[in-house]
């Protein structure tokens, strides 16, 4: 067990010049076979390995990461956690995830800096107010906290917002989920990696999966840049590359990869202490603990695997934020990048079995993957350990695209989710 993290251990470390700390996770080289292989060392993959070991005592597990753990979308998102969903199936899934987040720092003994500073969604028309009333009531039906906000309440929570009557994008009020907020994305990946490694999971970086081993049509391992590795069951949790891996296994997914951009301003003293989302303009932002405004908005709407993002979309993203916060015009963009997200038609994930025996998939989270890390890992671990879908994941199977039982949150709420 690596040393526990606490104020005391930090004090002991200081006295020993911090030479006493062990590796956060073991640098492992692949063994020839495991019970389970998880392809993808991002938040979802590492959480899957952790819950396999913790919930199901399956510890002969390897997480194979092409580059460095947390280097895919986990390291590229705007770190927002929330569960303001309309449909019961999504509400249960994402609120279970938020509940796991609420206990995660203690569970992993690693501070993921969960800051439940509330989400404020802005209403720009009376139609928006009506749909937010439906949203808030639906969430309460699902047992999730949600309240409407008057214009005055929005003004007090969101300084710098242009709420003047002549504003091009008028603000009439809003809706809030108090338990929503942000978490430090890197810490979520490293926290899960450390805890999984401590329970026996092998975390193998710079190991790219290039093919699948099959016997009688059943997946029994993978071909990698570090040689073949066999396993009873293989789970894919590699958002952005889900289709590439599925194709290697002879499987076609209802997924298209798009770049989702994010950008940060230079660091500022505290300015904004809540997460703000504007369905009308598509823009959302929060201020990180280091003081940078972390900004995101719409997708680059053409298929891409390039983690860059189009300059024209960067301009639209900033225009949507400055339409709401004109005074931010003089702030400066420090850095801009993009993650590659799996977009499916109904913007809901796919977690469970695939038509290929022995192969399981966790993908399709679209622009909402970070908030889904704990439950994505929890439910993929369940099906990898038991062969049966977890009840929470039961509505989110590949089959829904054939039966038409889509769970279309974006369409229901009318925003580009």
């Amino acid at each position: 067990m690596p040393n526990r993290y606490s104020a005391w251990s930090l004090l002991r470390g200081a006295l020993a010049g911090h030479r006493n700390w062990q590796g956060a996770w073991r640098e492992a080289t692949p063994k020839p076979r495991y019970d389970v292989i998880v392809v993808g060392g991002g938040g979802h993959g590492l959480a899957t390995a952790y819950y396999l070991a913790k919930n199901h005592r399956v510890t002969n597990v390897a997480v194979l990461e092409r580059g460095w753990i947390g280097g895919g979308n986990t390291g590229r998102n705007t770190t927002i956690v929330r569960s303001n969903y309309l449909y019961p199936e999504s509400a249960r899934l994402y609120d279970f995830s938020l509940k796991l987040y609420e206990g995660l720092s203690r569970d992993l003994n690693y501070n993921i800096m969960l800051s439940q500073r509330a989400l404020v969604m802005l209403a720009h028309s009376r139609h928006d107010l009506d749909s937010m009333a439906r949203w808030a009531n639906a969430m309460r039906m699902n047992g999730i906290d949600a309240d409407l906000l008057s214009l005055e309440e929005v003004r007090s929570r969101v300084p710098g917002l242009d709420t003047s009557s002549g504003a091009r994008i008028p603000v009439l009020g809003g809706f809030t989920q108090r338990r929503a907020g942000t978490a430090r994305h890197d810490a979520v990946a490293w926290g899960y990696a450390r805890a999984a490694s401590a329970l026996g999971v092998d975390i193998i970086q710079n190991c790219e999966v290039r093919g699948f081993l099959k016997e009688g049509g059943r997946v029994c391992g993978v071909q990698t840049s570090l040689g073949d590795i066999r396993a009873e069951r293989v789970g894919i949790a590699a958002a952005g590359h889900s289709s590439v891996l599925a194709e290697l296994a002879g499987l076609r997914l209802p997924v298209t990869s798009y770049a989702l951009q994010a950008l940060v301003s230079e660091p500022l003293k505290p300015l904004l202490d809540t997460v703000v989302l504007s369905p009308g303009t598509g823009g959302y932002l929060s201020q990180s603990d280091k003081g940078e405004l972390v900004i995101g908005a719409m997708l680059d709407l053409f298929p891409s695997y390039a983690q860059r993002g189009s300059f024209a979309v960067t301009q639209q993203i900033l225009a949507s934020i400055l339409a709401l916060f004109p005074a931010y015009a003089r702030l400066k963009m420090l850095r801009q990048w993009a993650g590659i997200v799996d977009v499916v038609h109904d913007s809901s994930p796919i977690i469970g079995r695939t038509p290929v025996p022995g192969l399981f998939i966790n993908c399709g989270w679209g622009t909402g993957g970070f908030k889904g890390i704990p439950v994505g890992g929890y439910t993929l671990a369940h099906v990898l350990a038991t062969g049966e879908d977890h009840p929470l994941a039961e509505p989110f199977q590949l089959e829904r695209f054939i039966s038409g039982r889509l769970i279309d949150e974006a369409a229901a709420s009318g925003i580009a989710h």
Partner: protein
Amino acid sequence: MSGTRLGEPYGRRIDRSRPISFMFNGRVLAGLQGDTLASALLANGVRLVGRSFKLHRPRGIFAAGIEEPTGIVDLVDGRHRTPDERATLVELVDGLAAESVNCWPSVGFDLGAVNGWFSPLLPAGFYYKTFKWPGWRPFEPAIRRMAGLGRASLERGGEVYEEISENVDLLVAGSGIAGLAAAAAAAEAGARTVLLCAGREPGGALGWRGDAEVGDLLVRARRAGVRILTRTLAFGVYDHNLVCASERLAHVPASATRRLSERLWKFRARSIVAAQGAFERPMLFPDNDRPGVMLAGAVDEYAHAYGVACGRRVVIAANCDSAYRVAESLQAAGIEVVALLDRRPSVDIGTHAAGVRAIANTGIGKVIGARSVRGCVAVPADGHSAPRLRLECDLILVAGGHAPAVHLHSQAGGRLRWLAESSMFVPDGNARGLVSVGACAGVFGREAAAQHAADVGRALALGFTVPAAPVGGASRSLASSRIAAVRGKQLVDLQNDVAVSDVELAARENYRSVEHLKRYTTTGMATDQGKTSNVNALVLMGEFTHREPAEVGTTRFRPPYSPVTFGALIGRRVGALYRPLKRLAAVEWHARHGALFEQFGNWSRPAAYPRSGESLHQAAQREALTVRRTVGLFDGSPLGKLEVWGADAARFLDLMYLGTMSTLAPGQARYGLLLNENGVIVDDGIVARVDERRFWVNTTSAGIERTAAAFEEWLQCEYTDLRVLVTPVTSRYGNATISGPKAFEVMAAAGFGAEFSPQATRHMTLHDGHWRGVPVRVLRASFTGELSYEINLPAGETEQLLQALAEGVETREGCLYGIEALEILRTEKGYLHVGTDTDGTTLPGDVGFARGIDRKAANFVGRRSLLRPAARDPQRLRLVGLAPLDGRTLLPTGAQIANAPPPTQTEGHVTSSYPSPSLGSPVALAMLARGGERLGEQVTVHHLGRRIEARVVSTPFVDPKGERLHG
């Protein structure tokens, strides 16, 4: 005093005859025209400029350009602030006021400095190991107040921005000797060439030394027609050779007055030349962050360009031959070089400086002075082979080697390789469409750089293959300048307080990837993005994990190369111009008649016409009642309008709509639903046949662009053999809608002939005619449930028609009515409002439009999806009428329907709900599971904790048999 002005010929950029006064932390200081804030502060001997991010250690000016990590200030003008400005880039102007950042109450006495004492408790990533109980939130406010640098103001200034695009043959980014040589040669070979110079004058490092060859190149370039843009920095290389640059125009501090502040340039270049030079690497030694430790090249630039001596007695810590040139240059300027401590063994030293005491194999073991350097102690590299040497000095220069600015090459997708002898990453071949020249290509020999750059310029202009870069000339430099034996905090990232011990801790805890190193320690994540720290950090990680720097590698280079103002990136897309807001042709007429405008989609339209003292809702109640009783006038111009024409138009519309349109006779009209391929309702509207080959199609005002695009997509991509042409005409026609029992009376009074009487013009028919010589297209259709005519005419005539009809409406105690009243009227009739009652999951069967699908021949859009299991699920939500049991309480829109208190499974929600002025009781529509079978059932409606009993009722609520409609 440590800072003073040098006499002529030093200070090529300043004008000694034009003094400038400015404020720093409330103190009035004097600078000169041509100074930067940094050079002026240094000239005034100001050493303490700010406080570092985490440990609040004292910080001074460190560099002279965009790589400045510590000289960060806020510019202040009353309520306006411009945060996080690099003092090295701020041009000094009269009245400029700057303030230190990240310190309270003052930069001299900063409470945050207490962090310095606890630094052993604050190693990299300390916050991951604690603050877990009772949770992070309680600790967060204090941590956030400590972090961050500048303060943003919530006051919008008067500055505006613009954007310009330009095609060029060759774009050169960087105006040193290499950039100028490439540009001149290319232009002379006939290429349209633009040269971007980040500073006020081209010339680069040699320029501010007054180098003659650079002067000649500049003349040649201008003569050959090179367009030189100064104060313009290329910050990003994007797809297909797009280079974005920002040009600084105004230097007056932010204020309320309007002025064009910055211009965004977008260049599409056939080829790009990167010539942005190289940064200087700092040296690693204890307390190397004290104010008074500066980059050697920067101090040389302050002397030559600004005539400022940053100190009187200098010690240089070197790991590169460039230190010797700087030593000679400062000696010549009358600044005493006490000693040059060269970290390298003598065999690596390729030059010497006349009259300078140089000691090989030696580094700095200790810096004396907390707030400002007062001296240092030299120690041998192996720690014991020579005595420690105390040196009195007021300035320590660091010359740790060079780091080529490979940012644009990397952004364009270029690869890098490690040049071991000079310990630097250089471009490995050229990226697609971008060639690097000069120091950023690793070519440091002056002649080699100029020659290669000229060859590249000519080759690119003439389309020849580009010669490879003659990399070299940067002398030998050790990868690591650290001396193992010395103790004390040695800073790698000066702004984020990342020390050598933090890199060691990262290695020990297996955060060994260069990306993990960056994110765990935050080195390279500050506003300078690691321009002076990245190489030292990755070399150290290599040392601690027994890997070569090439194996450790660099992190990804992301735009922007240097931070860019948000406003400059979006140009004119501000305020009203953020997104087009569509207005009615007769907008002023409506305003004169008391319209209360609101936004509906991207339209601004009258929500109601409140009379004095009336609220919006009271006005809407009155207007709705008036339409039922006498007559109302409504401006329907935003309605989407398409002309669908051709021999196959009828067949095509059968493929697009749920219902059958091909059976319409000329003059007949029919209501239709449009689905997407998933069977979901996306739009609705009336289709009327004008003649055999021409249809008039109405869509919702929000759905017109989507519907027109969908029709074009089907015609161009799938049904390519159909002879149909679709032409949007929304803006061509104004639309005045007159509705109510006296509707035709008003039309007649306005001059419309008997052919439009209710008897002659039946419900759901279309008639073209004339009114006062103007062509009109009259459609008798109703969204209010009353006798109703929609009169379309050329948009320019709308106001004349409205005025004529309004006179007739007034004499009959009618009124103008807005969207809110229309919503009440259509809800009373139970008419569907797509997007309000329906959402992205509603199928036609859910709202009573399932009849007759199987009788239809055409495989219309979405039809196949209606056969899927999910579409036939009996549990689907159906549109129903809902009325409160007590006949009084309004059922709130968005309320959920469930027969048990939350949390429970919801059975539906209220979609539209209004008090009905005609009935004197509330009417509502709702989507309810198995709605069709639950007529008469009592249900409970839940809204934010309140519960209201209601009953499922049939619709329409008013005039169920539609006698008023067909009268």
